[in-house]
């Protein structure tokens, strides 16, 4: 598929910004609005319902903190992969992207463990306002982590053969975005009282 001829439209750059980077930023912009809408809704409801703090105190803050650390570290790997791609070192970029993807796997595993505990304690999606938002927000974010992991591996497979190296930067941008969303979610869901 990637060997098929690209249209000239794809290779032009009237703005001076590479097309791949440009579309990545637009995708991120559209994602910001989706997460932004949900987060703003949550924050407004949270302000209106101080009693939700009781529910929030049941979240596993240490697990969330560990996951924050994992995601930030994986983002560092994404940056190093970008640096390797800039140096035209595809195999090294591929290796670093796979490590980044592994970070996503650790994140989701911790999440699964955490949610198992939550659910065993009886806190499910329909257990009340806070828990509905908790699972909806973290679930939407987890879906983005999962999608990012898969794309990271696809980009890595190409990069290993020194192909489509411009994509390394793009998936990195996306991964940082997913990371930043978590930076918002962690305090709002786990720490805020």
């Amino acid at each position, binding site marked *: 598929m990637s060997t098929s001829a690209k*249209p000239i*439209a794809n290779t032009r750059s009237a703005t001076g910004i590479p097309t791949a980077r*440009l579309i990545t930023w637009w995708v991120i912009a559209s*994602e910001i*609005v989706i997460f932004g809408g949900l987060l703003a809704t949550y924050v407004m409801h949270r302000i209106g319902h101080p009693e939700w703090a009781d529910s929030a105190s049941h979240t596993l803050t240490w697990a969330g903190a560990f996951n924050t650390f994992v995601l930030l570290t994986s983002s560092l790997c994404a940056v190093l992969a970008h640096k390797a791609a800039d140096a035209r070192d595809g195999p090294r970029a591929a290796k670093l992207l796979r490590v980044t993807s592994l970070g996503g796997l650790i994140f989701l595993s911790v999440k699964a463990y955490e949610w198992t505990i939550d659910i065993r304690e009886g806190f499910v*999606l329909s257990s009340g306002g806070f828990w*509905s938002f908790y699972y*909806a927000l973290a679930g939407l974010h987890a879906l983005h982590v999962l999608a990012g992991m898969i794309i990271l591996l696809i980009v890595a497979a190409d990069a290993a053969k020194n192909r489509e190296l411009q994509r390394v930067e793009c998936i990195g941008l996306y991964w940082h975005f997913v990371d930043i969303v978590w930076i918002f979610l962690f305090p709002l869901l786990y720490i805020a009282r």
Partner: protein
Amino acid sequence: MTTQVESLAHARPGFFQKYCWSTDHKIIAMQYLFTGMAMAAIGGYFAYVFRMQLGFPNQHVPGYGLVTPGKYNALVTMHGSIMIFWVAMPILIAAFGNFLIPLMVGCDDMAFPRINRLSYQIFLLSALMLLASFLVKGGPFGGAWTAYPPLSANGAYNLTPAGATMWLIAVALEFVAFLLGGINFTVTTMNSRAPGMKMFDIPMLVWMIVLASIIFMASVGPLIAGAVMLLFDQTMATGFYDPMRGGDPLLWQHLFWFFGHPEVYVVLLPAMGIVAEVLAVFARKKLFGYKTVLYTAWAVGFLSFVVWAHHQFVAGIDPRMANIFSITTLLISVPIAEMVFLYIATLYGGSIHLDTPMLWALGFIAEFLVGGVTGIFLGASGTDIYLHDTYFVIAHFHYTFVPIAIIAVYAGLTFWYPKMFGRMLNETLGKIHFWGTVIPFNVIFIPLFITGTAGDQRRVYSYAQFAEQARPELQHLRTTSTIALIVMLAFQFVFLFNFFWSLRHGKRADANPWRSATLEWTIPSPPPHGNFAELPTVYRGPYEYGLPGHAQDFLPQNVPD
């Protein structure tokens, strides 16, 4: 570069490859166009059925049967949803955008052809999902196209539990399709323009579609999140919109209209763009105030994000907030009015040719004005409280949406038909179709302004059933409206005949039948795969018409001085 164009042109795809799995922007445009036209036929049929119920209550409707209350609710819900999400959006933005953006900015395809194909496939899936909801138990969703909870959130209230969920999934998929398509349009226009095409050399239609895509992208996100929350409420017993459980039904109204009102401008701007192109060509005059048109469009886009709560004046919002939203709503009519003035100024002193596309473009201005002016009454919270949810609202937004999604689309279709299919449409049939559409359209909706002002509530399946709503003295107006609708629908067959007959038997169109200056008219009709034999360079703006001292009265964008 030429070798790449050749290699694309030499690929000989099979039927399935060419028409169902193509990444060619022109084929995808046709897929969107024909899907949209098929959905328009369905939506029009629904309008016929429920108007028959209102015009001739509780009688057997020919071609449908008896309209029960539940069926009536489903019919009006589906009519609204289909016409906005599966007709206006795919035709105005996706079909015209896909066909024209690469041609007008002078490149061989979209920047991301496979994302483009994916966009159509998701859109088709969403249409099929919606149509499939007609087959489930309880029938399609009947909670109005705005889907307000608690009615939409609880199957026990709306009586269409499966249909409601399928409607929601279909709408969400449709949003995803247009996010993908819109981002592609934006990136293509930003990056893939022909050398020499500067910001203010971009044809107005392309600008409008890109602005519409950006407005759509910025407004739909919260509703996508809101749709997921409603889905959870429907299927997983959450209480996001349930006040008994810490939720808030008003939240949906805010999320819906934060998208829903910008959406009006998402479809309006491309319609304005089509009209701008047509006016300049048929007045043989430069578009008056290109930059001002553009700046007013930006102003409209910005203001469209701060007017949404004017849909909620009776929903119990703070009256102080209602005042603010009244002011912003009245403000947005300023840039729109300015745009219309600029279009009229384009006509002034022009050499006007009344071909069919021009008739449609002029019709758009005249009819849309009525829609805009009646909107003032609804934007002011005082009058809106009286007129809310009456037929006045119905008449108002049909005076905006019909010019946008029907009249401007016909302007565009009749204008670009030669470029799309390489044949000319029949002018006489085109003019019959124009008058046969525009006159009955006014006869449908002017009576509804009157019944609405007299107090007829919308979404009532039979007035006779409700003593305080009956008002038999208004029945002749309701019946008039129904008969006019049947006449208008009948005249659409003239268009369909003209459309399909001309595909084979129309006069062959040369490259530039309208003597137009934009890039798509510099190549053969229909354009070959890969579009331009030699990719153009642009030397000037798109509207160089009425030039004295030249062999032709216009200068194409790609001809050097």
